Each structure stands twice: as C-alpha cells, then as structure tokens.
C-alpha cells in the first residue's frame, strides 16, 4: 500500500492483552447460555434525549418491537430484546459509575424469542430524511462506545458529499477484541454497511482503518472488499498506538485533517463510523432488523475470555458466568482499562455502549501508589494526543481556576487517560479534568438557570409596570368619560335652563303684548 499516512502526537503503548479473547469464535449468548430470568432494558442508551416508554406493565411484546420512542431528533429508539411480557417499567440501576437509576423496561421472556414482523427498508428509493428516520427508529447508535445516534451522522455535509468516510476498526483499547472478531467473522456485513454509508453520504472514498496489530482482520477485510467488488473502499492498516482508535486521531492518521473541538467533522468533508455500527446499519436497512444486540468482549480476570453476541438488557453477570470469573475478582469495568467505567453492581444490564466487560481484581489492576506532587516533568504533555498541557490543566483544575483551564483548552481533552498512564507522580489526572468539566457545566447550568430566573423576574416587573400603566390609563379614561358625562349633563341642564329662561321670556313677552293690547 502506498497510501500516505499521517501522524498524531503523543499516545502510549500499553500492554494490549488481546490474544486471550481471540482464541474462540464469537458465541451467540442464546446458543450457549440459559435464557436470563429477565431483561432490563434501559430506555436511555444513547447520547441525546431519553426515549419515552411505549409499553406498560402486563403487555406482551415481540422481539424487535419498539418499546422506547425517540424523544425529538437527537435521540434513538429502543426495542424489545426478545418476546415476552412486560413485567414493569421502573427505575433500575444503570451500568454507570455514578450508581444512578433510570427508567427501564423489564421484560420477562416467554422463551419463544419470536420476531415482530419486519422487512428490509427500501432505502435506495427513500429521501435522505426518510433514511435517517428509519435509522433512528431502528435504534442504530455508535457502537464504538460513544453511542451517538448514527442517523445524525449520516449526512453528506454542506458541500453535498463527503471527501472521506472513515470506518473505524482500529480498536486501540487493551483487552477489547469485539471489532477484531467481527471483522474476521462477519466482514461482509461491515463492507456492505460501509457501502451503504458511502452512498448515503456521497463519499468519494471510504477508508477502513485497522491497527496493524490485527493482521488477520486486515487480510480478511481486504479479501471481502475484493470478493464483494466494493468500489472506493480501501482497508488501511494504521500504526498501533493508543488512542489511534479515537475518531479524531484516526481521521488525522488517515487524512491529515484535524477536527477541532466543537466543530463538525462533516465541515471538513469527513465522517467516522465504527465497524460495528456499519454492520448494524446494514442489518437495519437491508434486513430490517432493529438494534437489539451487539458483540462484546469478556476479558480480564476470567479463565475463558471470549466474545459474545449479547442482547441488550442481559445482566452482565449472566455473560461473565460463561467465562469463569476467578475468585479474587472484585469489579466489572465496562469498556477497556484506559477509558472504561467501573460498574456499581455485577447485575447491571448490557447496553448498546457495552463493548467489553472487563473483570478486574486487585492483582490485575492494583490501586495506584500514593499520589505525589507534580514535578512538571512534561511526560503527560508528550503523551497527550490532543497536544494539551495536562499538568497545567491539572494545576488549574485542582485550584478551581476554571477560566484558565478553559483557556488551556480543557474541553479538547478526550479523556483517553494517556497522561495519567505515564505520570510518574501517580496523579489521577483525568479525574481532575472530569471534576473541572462537571463543575464548569454545573456553573453554566446554574448561570443559565439564574439568567432564566432573572429574565422571569424582570418580565414580571415589566408586566406589573405595564399592568399598572394600563390600569392607570383605564382609570384615567374612565375618569375622563365620567367627567365628560358630567359636563354633558351640566351642559344639558344649562341648555334646559336656557330653554326654560327662553320660554319664560316668551311667556313674559306674550304677557307684555297681551297687556299692551
């Protein structure tokens, strides 16, 4: 390949630990495990507004039935993972570090796993808006981990076509192999999905980027491109360096374009989808199947690491049970060791964002040594793929000098964890950035709430003032009216007096004439 690749600064090379879960093929969870007692399907599984429930407790649902309707455009539908009875629509613990609960549809499976009627979507004859609606209603969201609603990204941009569509198969997080295995076992769906996206975005070229530590996937995907005679689609092996699979980093490596924070990548003529998402788009449009499952890796402190295709709502410990968690396991991490989240319980459900259940133990992920002061060695700055000065951000975040933190581009931080990974002082740098970001958001919310309150107050004052003026005007008008009436009455009485006087005068006159005659 003679394609010119670009470089991003920074990055790290952590131990990848991927081999363990590559030994066996992807297993369909249903084929190898008993049916879970219940599926707990959170309604809010994507970025954007939480979908509203469309079913009530006691109703029966079929597999693939819409159970959560998208809330506005920035939202995505949610579907029943199997057929059965809706046991409850209630708050359940979410797969998130916060330990918060959210509204879930709890389905008791009937064991038949019966599909709802579904048919391929005639997307070629549909308008772009209709295709986007179809993807939204099929619940397709980004499977790389960010779960951004995909329909919003199927967009050719201002110039009417994309220059480059990037399909992200880099999979740079340690331990995770779900994209690798999907590319090896199901390359056709990915390539076909990429071709659909190419046509929908009018992309001039499609580049599927895969880290070069996955030579099997690269070879199989290249063979699939040839076999399917997919036009303008190229498989590109990119250097293995975390976080090469970050969307911005991969776009940079493949095209040389740097998408600034807060800008849309389509403004630069590029867009990026995960390989799993491309496959899901193919399933949604060509097969009419909504997104009800995904491939995920179970790895870490387990005897038999493996990839499974798992329906959303399946309790995580049901999946891990198949892999033999070792006795000293003490946590589940959703995602990889660099960016994953520790789960509040082992029973939380698998959701669209669950690319990996990483089982951890104290031995595998020992607690960091005591945090030391920063010695400004600059290792973090060398490792930062966003070219930030992490130690400066740390300083400003810790001192709560949030204005300065934003000046030093805090919000360009992608929280990849490279800085904390290399820090010789063991400072949990990313935690400081998360803290600063949430504080800034909270303050902005507070400020906008205060602004709203102030506006309301000012509006009330204005309204009261207006009411007062109106009332005064009304009263004045009324007073004027009364005055006018009085004046009229007075005028009337004056006129009557005149008349009487005139009459009296006439009478007197007549009397005088009579007397004279």
């Amino acid at each position: 390949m003679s394609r010119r690749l670009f470089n991003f600064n920074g990055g790290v090379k952590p131990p990848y630990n991927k081999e363990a879960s590559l030994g066996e093929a992807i297993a369909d969870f249903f084929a190898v495990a008993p049916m879970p007692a219940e599926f707990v399907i959170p309604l809010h599984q994507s970025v954007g507004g939480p979908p509203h429930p469309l079913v009530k407790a006691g109703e029966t649902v079929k597999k693939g039935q819409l159970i959560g309707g998208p809330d506005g455009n920035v939202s995505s539908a949610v579907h029943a993972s199997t057929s059965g009875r809706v046991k409850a629509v209630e708050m359940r613990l979410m797969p998130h570090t916060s330990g918060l609960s959210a509204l879930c549809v709890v389905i008791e499976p009937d064991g038949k796993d019966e599909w709802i009627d579904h048919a391929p979507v005639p997307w070629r004859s549909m308008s772009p808006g209709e295709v986007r609606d179809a993807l939204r209603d099929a619940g397709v969201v980004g499977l790389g981990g960010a779960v951004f609603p995909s329909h919003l990204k199927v967009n050719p941009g201002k110039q009417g076509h994309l220059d480059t569509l990037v399909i992200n198969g880099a999979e740079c997080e340690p331990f995770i192999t779900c994209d690798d295995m999907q590319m090896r076992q199901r390359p056709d769906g990915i390539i076909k999905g990429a071709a659909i996206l190419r046509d929908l975005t009018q992309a001039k070229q499609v580049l599927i980027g895969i880290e070069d530590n996955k030579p099997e996937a690269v070879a199989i995907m290249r063979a699939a491109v040839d076999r399917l005679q997919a036009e303008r689609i190229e498989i590109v092996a990119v250097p293995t360096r975390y976080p090469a699979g970050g969307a911005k980093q991969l776009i940079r490596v493949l095209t040389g374009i740097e998408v600034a924070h807060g800008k849309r990548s389509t403004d630069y003529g590029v867009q990026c989808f995960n390989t799993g998402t491309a496959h899901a788009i193919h399933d949604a449009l060509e097969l009419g199947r909504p997104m009800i499952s995904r491939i995920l890796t179970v790895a870490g402190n387990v005897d038999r690491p493996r990839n499974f295709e798992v329906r959303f709502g399946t309790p995580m410990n049901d999946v891990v049970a198949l892999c033999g968690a070792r006795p000293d396991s003490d946590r589940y991490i959703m995602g990889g060791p660099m960016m994953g989240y520790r789960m509040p319980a082992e029973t939380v459900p698998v959701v669209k964002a669950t690319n990996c259940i990483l089982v951890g133990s104290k031995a595998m992920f020992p607690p960091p040594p005591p945090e030391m002061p920063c010695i400004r060695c600059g290792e973090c700055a060398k490792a930062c793929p966003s070219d930030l000065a992490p130690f400066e951000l740390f300083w400003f975040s810790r001192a709560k000098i949030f204005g300065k933190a934003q000046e030093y581009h805090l919000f360009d931080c992608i929280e990849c964890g490279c800085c904390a990974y290399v820090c010789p002082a063991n400072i949990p740098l990313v935690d400081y950035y998360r803290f600063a970001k949430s504080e800034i958001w909270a303050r902005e919310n507070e400020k906008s709430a205060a602004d709203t309150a102030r506006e309301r107050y000012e509006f009330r004052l204005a309204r009261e003032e207006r009411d007062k003026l109106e009332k005064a005007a009304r009263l004045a008008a009324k007073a004027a009216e009364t005055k006018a009436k009085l004046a009229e009455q007075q005028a009337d009485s004056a006129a009557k007096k005149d008349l009487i006087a005139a009459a009296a005068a006439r009478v007197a006159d007549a009397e005088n004439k009579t007397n004279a005659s």
Partner: protein
Amino acid sequence: MQANSPFFRRNVSIQGVMLKVLAALLPAIAVYVWFFGTAILIQIALTSIAALAGEALILSLRDKPVAIFLSDGSALVTAWLIALTFPPIAPWWLTVTATLIAIIVVKHLYGGLGQNPFNPAMVAFCLMIVAYPQMMSQWPAVGFTDFAAQVAAIFGERHIDALVMATPLDALRTGLHTPEAHATVAGIFGAGASFGNIGGKGWEWIAGGYLLGGLWLMQQRVISWRQPVAFLGTLMLIAGIASLAAPDRFAGPLFHALTGGAMLGAFFITTDPITGATTPRGKLIFAAGVAALVWIIRTFGAYPDGIAFATLLMNICVPLIDMATQPPVFGHKED
C-alpha cells in the same frame, strides 16, 4: 477502590526518575575523585545526610508522610548538585548550612516537591558565594589529593593556601576584564598551571563525565535534548563570535563549554523540570537565556562562573516563557 479509568499505569515513579539522575552523575564523580581525591565523596556524604535530615524534619513539621517523600530521591539530587558545585575542600559547616537552606527554605517553604520556583542547589550556591566569597573560591590544585589534608581542610583548621589555585575562569576574568588587566587569552593559557588541553586541567575531564551521564539521561528519555542543545549551542555561539572578533580578549567556544559548571548546567541544571520551562519552545528559550547570561557574567561580572546566577534569573522568567510558548492544541493549529 479506584473508581475511574485509567485502571492501569506505566511502571514509572518520581523515585525512578531521581535515581536515574543520580546514576547519571556517577561518571563525573568518578573522574572527580581521580583528579581531585576523595574530598568530593566526603562532601557528597555530608550534603546527603544534611538533605535527608532537613527533609525529614521539615516534612514532619509540615505533617507530610515522611517515608514517602524522603524516599522520592529529590533531596539527594539537590544534595549531590550542591556537593558538585561547591569547592570540594570547603568547610563542612558551609556545605551543610547551604544544603539545609536549600531543602528547608528554598524547597519546602515554597511548598515542597514540585512547588519551588527556584533551583535549590543554585540558590544555595549564590547565597554562599555572596556570604563567603573567599571560601567559595578556594579550589584545589590538580594533584592535591592527599586524604588527610583534605579531611583537615573540611573538618579542621584550614591551612590550605598552598593547596589552592585560581581556576581558569578566575585567571581569565582577572587577567582580561579587570581595570588593571593587560594580558591576552593566549598569554594566560600559556602561563596558567590550571589549564588543561581545552578547559581547566582535570575539570575538562569531569565535564566529559557530565556529558556522558547527560547523554545517557537523554537516551533514557529522562531529559529532553532541547535544554542541553540550546544551552551549549548558545554559549558556544556567543563565545565563538566574541573570540573571532577579539581573540586576545575572549576565550573560545570549546573552552567555555568545557570549563566551570557549563556541562553540569547543560545537562543537570537547565533540565530541572520543576524550575525550568515546560513547553518545547520554552525549554529552548530558557536554556539559551541561561547560556547568554552565563557568558555575560563570566566575561564581565563580578563572579568567575555564572551558572547559578543565570539559572535563578531565568527561573524568574519561567511562568512568562511558558505562557508565551504554549503549543497549539489538536485542531487549533491554524488559529
């Protein structure tokens, strides 16, 4: 338990970094002993003990975990740098006091590890050369390696006039740039017993030891190439231009690079992460600034060597340099 990612980290520590810096000083120390005897080892022992004791005392006064911070190695780096910049036959109380001031006042009263704006060893040097200029300029002559005499000089009565000699920088400054000066560079080089092939006799080899250790630190990625290159490049450039313009009045570039504290400064002082600039361009500016000031102080100043004063002057400028040289972040390169 740790709740947030990343869940694993590279096996690096501040202690590891500091130990590498200490290891990188070993070649120069070995050469030092070879030419000037074991006095330097006594000084290193004295400053090390003083630094650790002072650090332990101030840490416990500040309610900090003593064991963790004492083992980070940073106090030892300061101690060794003080020992290596002071005359090896300086009296024990001089180096011990200097070390205690460096650790307690310059490091910990400013907030401790990572917080001090000034290089502790350099402040210690400046303070002592101002307070005790005579003792701070008594450097042993090459060949003065007698252990008993050295011990006596450090701990006992000081009868060392016969044992010390003017350093090359001293000789040049008094010979060329004082009002009564009338010598030429070549004349001084020829007459001075303290001159070696390029720099000071013996000292030029110690400079080689610093160079070796510094290159190893670079290879280990503990220090950047930027400060040493900018420092030596600037110093040699200025010295080169001056000596080309007036060869009788100004010493040449190689002499400056291999004399006094230049090599130590290039690899071990300007590269101090805590008190130096942190941005790529900032590191170049900082080290170049130190070098320019060193040449000016050496040539026209009241003190023979200027590494310490130059470093402190540039330490003051670090916040400004860092602020002005922030590199563009990802996606904002055209801004």
